[in-house]
């Protein structure tokens, strides 16, 4: 059985990304950058309406336009099922074409005449949940999930020493991958090659084959470099099949990359989350009950569920009633820790409110409610470490008493994620007589450093420098590996690489064992030599060993094995913020992150995952919001100018501590670091301003409304009692826009 080296040479070191030089210098060719001989540009015409019936599509003018080689409807009006003639959201595909230049394609698309019958739509959850609302789908706009209930909630709340009650919510955000979704398709007879910006080359092949009705053996998918996915590029999309059809129809290669507006409208988003919560603690600060009525929207699709209460703290009695709400908007899809940022935000904010009511330090309240058994006791260690690093001891009670408009505050939150690895992952390794090594695995590097990790494990196993091994990924011609999602890539591909390379090394050991007079099982490779495990002098240089292969390389296949990876990560984050109460503007001063992830392969890229997750969490906390016009259902900020993403000056000092756990094997780290950032920031803002932040994003409007509400409450003299009112419903609070999908 394969194992990780006890004294690794490379693993765990901060190793530079192997594709850094080609990326930094602009030499890496992403899908967006590819040019194929005779290549055309594809362009999709999309619905401008949130809901409409397509009555006719007239391609004739577009077909005659300069440069156009092929045009096709996407909505099939010959389909006898009338529902398929409807467009359900702005940005849904209606027709497509391919032209010689991008400009010609754009011109021609505007010549496609589409007759729409505009239909009533719903743009917000409030609109959608009204009884008289137009129905997005015939089965109604609200899909109720089963009630999940443990214990007697009413009794437990009644018996609680302190209860908080409120409405909490988060916004819809988009993945905003910098490289938009898209691909280049080229046919050679019946064989299709697709260069795709995808998180799953094998998945893309499977989807294209089914979508086009051709065998998987006729398709090759390649993704050497891709510009971000964050969960939105795991499956096939309409444009993938459309691009292949355009290329077939035109008889030329076609590149179809979405523009930014299309990307914002139609390639997925993180659903909103709403929760009406009642929660209690007893006199000892032990959580007693958590009752939540929740809803959210994933647009014209389901799946707006999220874990609540977030499954970290022990709460004996709980009830959860969830509804998915359809609206006429682009469909949700997995986005970096699906459900968790929403659940963590609501839960951790409720916890801070309970701590305030109970007169407890929020950190103390958390420590009193963490599980005791391993591995979850990690949080018990990490919280005090993070507290030390952020300077928790200087935390003031809720409401910075310092005079002046700038208020400081601290907050914290925890995260958990599964990770794991896929046992279906396969690899292939060749050792050549000249000493060359090639490791092939059909995974893809979505920016997380996969190529680097595979290379490190390969080099480690053969005791060679990084630059003496070749790693080939990102192609369906290589053995099957799963999609890069769910933080399972490292747990899938590094064990598989280790297993495969160990197998290849064993084959080499067989060849040289007689000559060395050593049991082949006792032969290892290190420092450029192949030698007896207990006696490095009994061996030979790597190249000499390979010469013994004669003319035939070693070629072995390997498959993932258990024992090299684990499931489960834990982490905590602390935020130090500064809020200007005269403008409502929050600046994050510092984030502290304590995170475990098992055996670290590359310390540099592992740390970068934390920096990246936190940065995305800051965007979620403060800035990002997909805003749909409530009256038309059309997105008002389908761009990067008013869809606000954090930039350099919005990023605080970030202090990352990775907790090494080599004994656990590898555990994925892609998702967990982004989960708790917004929750920690929200709690820090509340701590700073002395008013409750109960929804995201924490815009100036949000902060000023919270302050106004707190002042109104003070005037009413209702301090200390449960808050029965909802944000925005309080007299004195300015009416605020909370953005799109409500």
């Amino acid at each position, binding site marked *: 059985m394969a194992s990780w080296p006890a004294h690794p040479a490379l693993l765990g070191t901060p190793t530079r990304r192997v594709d850094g030089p080609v990326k930094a210098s602009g030499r890496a060719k992403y899908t967006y950058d590819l040019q194929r001989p005779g290549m055309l540009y594809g362009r999709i015409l999309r619905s*401008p309406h949130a809901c409409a019936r397509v009555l006719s599509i007239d391609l004739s003018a577009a077909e005659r336009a300069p440069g156009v080689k092929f045009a096709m409807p996407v909505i099939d009006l010959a389909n006898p099922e009338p529902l398929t003639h409807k467009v359900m959201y*702005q940005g849904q595909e209606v027709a497509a074409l391919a032209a010689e230049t991008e*400009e010609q394609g*754009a*011109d021609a698309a505007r010549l496609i005449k589409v007759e729409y019958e505009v239909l009533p739509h719903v743009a917000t959850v409030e609109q959608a949940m009204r009884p008289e609302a137009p129905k997005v789908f015939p089965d109604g706009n609200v899909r109720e999930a089963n009630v999940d209930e443990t214990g007697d909630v009413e009794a437990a709340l009644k018996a609680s020493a302190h209860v908080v009650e409120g409405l909490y919510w988060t916004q819809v955000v988009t993945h905003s991958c910098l490289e938009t979704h898209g691909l280049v398709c080229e046919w050679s007879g019946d064989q299709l090659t697709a260069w795709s910006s995808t998180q799953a080359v094998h998945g893309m092949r499977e989807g294209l084959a089914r979508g086009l009705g051709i065998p998987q053996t006729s398709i090759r998918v390649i993704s050497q470099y891709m510009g971000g996915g964050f969960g939105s590029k795991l499956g096939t999309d309409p444009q993938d099949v459309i691009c292949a059809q355009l290329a077939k129809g035109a008889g030329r290669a076609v590149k179809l990359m979405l523009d930014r507006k299309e990307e914002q409208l139609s390639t997925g988003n993180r659903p909103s989350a709403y929760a009406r919560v009642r929660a209690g603690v007893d006199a000892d600060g032990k959580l007693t009950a958590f009752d939540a009525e929740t809803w959210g929207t994933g647009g014209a699709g389901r799946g707006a569920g999220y874990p609540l209460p977030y499954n970290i703290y022990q709460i004996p009695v709980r009830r959860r009633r969830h509804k998915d709400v359809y609206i006429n908007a682009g469909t949700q899809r997995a986005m970096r820790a699906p459900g968790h940022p929403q659940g963590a935000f609501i839960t951790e904010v409720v916890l801070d409110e309970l701590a305030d009511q109970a007169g407890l330090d929020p950190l103390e309240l958390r420590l009193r409610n963490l599980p005791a058994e391993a591995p979850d006791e990690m949080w018990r260690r990490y919280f005090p470490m993070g507290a030390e690093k952020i300077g928790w001891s200087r935390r003031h009670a809720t409401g910075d008493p310092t005079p*002046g*408009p*700038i208020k400081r505050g601290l907050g914290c939150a925890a995260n958990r994620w599964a990770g794991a690895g896929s046992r279906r992952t396969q690899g292939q390794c060749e050792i050549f007589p000249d000493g060359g090594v090639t490791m092939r695995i059909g995974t893809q590097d979505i920016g997380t450093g996969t190529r680097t990790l595979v290379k490190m494990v390969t080099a480690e196993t053969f005791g060679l420098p990084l630059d003496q091994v070749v790693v080939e990924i990102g192609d369906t011609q290589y053995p099957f590996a799963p999609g890069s999602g769910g933080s399972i890539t490292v747990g899938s591909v590094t064990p598989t690489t280790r297993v495969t390379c160990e197998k290849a090394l064993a084959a080499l050991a067989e060849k040289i064992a007689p000559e060395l007079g050593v049991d082949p099982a006792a032969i290892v490779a290190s420092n450029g030599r192949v030698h007896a495990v207990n006696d490095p002098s009994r061996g030979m240089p790597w190249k000499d060993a390979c010469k013994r292969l004669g003319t035939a390389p070693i070629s072995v296949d390997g498959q993932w094995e258990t024992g090299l990876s684990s499931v489960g990560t834990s982490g905590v984050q602390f935020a130090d913020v500064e809020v*200007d109460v*005269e*403008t*409502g*503007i929050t*600046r994050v001063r510092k984030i502290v992150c304590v995170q475990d992830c098992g055996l670290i392969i590359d310390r540099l890229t592992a740390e970068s995952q934390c920096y990246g997750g936190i940065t995305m969490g800051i965007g979620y906390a*403060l*800035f990002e919001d997909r*805003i749909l*016009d*409530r*009256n*038309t259902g*059309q*997105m*008002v*900020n*389908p761009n990067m*100018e*008013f869809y*606000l993403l*954090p*930039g*350099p*000056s*919005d990023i605080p000092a970030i202090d990352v501590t990775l907790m090494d756990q080599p004994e656990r094997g590898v555990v994925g780290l892609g998702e967990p670091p982004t989960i708790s950032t917004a929750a920690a920031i929200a709690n820090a803002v509340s701590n700073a301003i002395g008013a409750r932040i109960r929804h995201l994003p924490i*815009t*100036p*409007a949000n902060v*000023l*409304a919270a302050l106004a509400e707190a002042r109104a409450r003070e005037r009413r003299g209702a301090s200390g009692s449960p808050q029965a009112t909802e944000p925005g419903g309080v007299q004195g609070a*300015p*009416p*605020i*826009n909370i*953005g799109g999908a409500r």
Partner: protein
Amino acid sequence: MKSFAYVDAANEQEAIAALGTQRGRILPIAGGMDLVGLMKDYVAQPDRVVNVKRLDRTIAATPDGGLRIGAAATLIELVEHAGAARAYPALVQAAAEVGTPQIRHAGTVGGNVAQRPRCWYFRNEEFQCLKKGGPRCFAVDGENQLHAIFGDGPCHIVHASSLAVPILAYGGTFRVAGPSGERDVAAADFFQMPDENLMGENVLRPNELVTHVTLPPPGRVRSATCEIRFKQSHDWPLALATAILTMSGETVRGARIVMGAVAPVPWRAQAAEAALTGQAVTEATAGAAADAAVRDAKPMSGNAYKVQIARTAVKRAILKAAGLPTV
């Protein structure tokens, strides 16, 4: 972007000759920071674009001690102009906060002043709003969190130019050139409210250009601009304000206070000026002036928070001008 013909004007006369009388059919391009985006979004669909980058870009003192800024000067040229920064700090502070380095390197002073609104209804092709000849302003009962808190409509944009604010405060004048010659238009008369001019934001006719801006000698004043934006990196201001104080000892003898990003034009706050006049600048008097500045604000359904932000911008601009700490 619709295709268009292109004229590279070597001078004012060529530029004006190349511009037409039909609104929107022929448009000048300077830095392009505004126009290229408008064209990509099919909000502007000119048949001809006239390059005016080769026109006047000098930044120079006028004989009477004022400042003349060629409209084709880039924002970075203004920011890096030591003389301008010393004499007109409020102007250069505003310029330094515009957009990003890339925008300041290409964008021009004239382009900044004459740019079209950033209203998201105006900028998205789907919305046939008033300003595009459509039937209604979508902001009225829509997503108006970034819209105007002053003015009676019918269009509720905020003016997008940051430079316009200090230019108005300093009493600047725009030199406008057209087929029948040149005219000077005071900044106070240059910008137009939607009820005067729905399809544009200023007095420029389709065949006219701003060739330069002249600021009068600043006199013995203290001035500052305070911009408040949400993102500290690239973002549009939620509000900004310029305060120009003429001091007599510690007492304000006269004040000019103008707010930006709050109304369809740069918005002069005469009530604030009156409130401050005769006072020493303190946190309290600046706050009282700021209260006066926003007293007549008429926020929309979703932008009441901007009243507070505009108030803060005014207060801090006054304190900053007086050399006092702003927070």
